């Protein structure tokens, strides 16, 4: 079979690509061995968040968040503009609040009193925080399905890349003008030279407690504890779902590729959450699970060509939901020869060549 663009992966990134390319009239085919939005897309928190670990990360997340806000999503995507509340435990973290405030438009510095007014369940003794009202949460598997609603999907794996497309596990050969691999951490099966490693995470979700939590809360220590590249870390990161459920994260670890729950790490993550928000311990946990982020050495995704006809869009680590739309826009601009909204160079795969 033939297509203009063959997209490998029906996660949020592949879905965003398909939606963008289709909108320009291109003929797309998505191949997916498992389910729409069934990998990291389903495992993650669905947080659309502006982050500033690096200028390039800030540019891509801010651009992508604008693109999300331009979409009129259906109700089952459960998008809510909860806003992110970065929680500062001490004076050192309040300095970080001030720094972020300068970078994040429309953000608001909260002192101790304002912090407890915003989130009364936080433990006493915290210093304050930064409220970023434009951030949102959404249910990513349904977002992926919605983005893919007009695109044909073939449920098969890519057995082998060919000079003009791919041979699929079901025996089909697809020839395509352009092939884009958007298969997250699984991409190294096809392109082992890419510096992408799976970084495992745990999450837990509670029964429904409407009104318990109002914003997506993230500890500012997150930068110290989770975004470092140490082998194993946990951070306080909780999110109110539109159902009233509380989603509790997060953990990060390299070198464990089993999807099984690591009970000790799960407990460590939950203790961190209870440390910030003591009454969480009374809530009923109904489910826990793990997922794999596709991590790169510089925490920036790989977006761009490997060869003329083989492009990649992977390595989004914990920000794939947020940056999926920006990723798709950058690649579409490249295909059409249009000037990109943000400089694409920091994300080009050949930076690691």
């Amino acid at each position: 079979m033939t297509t203009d663009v063959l997209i490998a992966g029906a996660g949020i990134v592949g879905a965003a690509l398909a939606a963008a390319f289709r909108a320009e009239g291109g003929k797309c085919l998505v191949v997916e061995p498992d389910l729409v939005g069934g990998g990291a897309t389903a495992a993650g928190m669905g947080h659309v968040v502006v982050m500033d670990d690096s200028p390039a990360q800030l540019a891509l997340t801010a651009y992508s968040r604008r693109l999300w806000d331009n979409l009129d999503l259906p109700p089952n995507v459960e998008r809510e503009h909860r806003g992110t509340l970065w929680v500062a435990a001490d004076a050192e973290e309040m300095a970080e609040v001030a720094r972020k405030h300068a970078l994040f438009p429309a953000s608001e510095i909260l002192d101790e009193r304002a912090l407890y007014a915003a989130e009364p369940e936080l433990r006493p003794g915290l210093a304050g925080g930064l409220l970023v009202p434009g951030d949102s949460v959404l249910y990513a598997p349904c977002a992926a399905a919605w983005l893919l609603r007009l695109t044909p999907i073939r449920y098969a794996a890519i057995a082998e890349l060919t000079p003009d497309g791919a041979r699929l596990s079901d025996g089909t050969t697809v020839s395509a003008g352009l092939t884009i691999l958007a298969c997250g951490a699984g991409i190294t099966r096809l392109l082992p030279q890419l510096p992408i490693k799976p970084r495992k995470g745990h999450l837990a979700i509670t029964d429904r407690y409407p009104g318990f939590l109002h914003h997506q809360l993230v500890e500012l220590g997150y930068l110290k504890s989770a975004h470092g590249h140490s082998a194993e870390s946990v951070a306080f990161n909780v999110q109110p779902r539109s159902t009233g459920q509380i989603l509790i994260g997060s953990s990060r670890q390299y070198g464990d590729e089993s999807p099984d729950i690591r009970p000790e790490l799960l407990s460590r993550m939950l203790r961190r959450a209870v440390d910030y928000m003591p009454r969480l311990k009374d809530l009923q946990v109904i489910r826990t699970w793990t997922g794999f982020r596709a991590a790169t050495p510089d925490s920036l995704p790989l977006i761009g060509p490997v060869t003329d006809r083989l492009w990649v869009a992977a390595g989004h680590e914990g920000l794939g939901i947020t940056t999926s739309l920006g990723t798709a826009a950058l690649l579409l601009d490249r295909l059409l020869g249009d000037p990109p909204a943000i400089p694409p160079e920091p994300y080009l795969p050949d930076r690691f060549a």
Partner: protein
Amino acid sequence: MIPVTVNGTPLTVPPGTTVAAAVMRIQPAFRRSVTGESRGPLCGMGICMECRVTLNGHPHERSCQLLCAAGMEITTP
């Protein structure tokens, strides 16, 4: 006999009575489903979660698996 309250209504039950049985003495419905339907116990063995009540202020307790104790305050939405 053990005194409890169900939505504020005082009630005494014999020892060994489950919280679910105490509620059913007063009313058939235990909870509102997520779309607002009235629901009552189904499995009676702690699996289906339809019999969840608020017990002494703690929501989502499985009433069929718990025995009544003196002074328990049982509430249903």
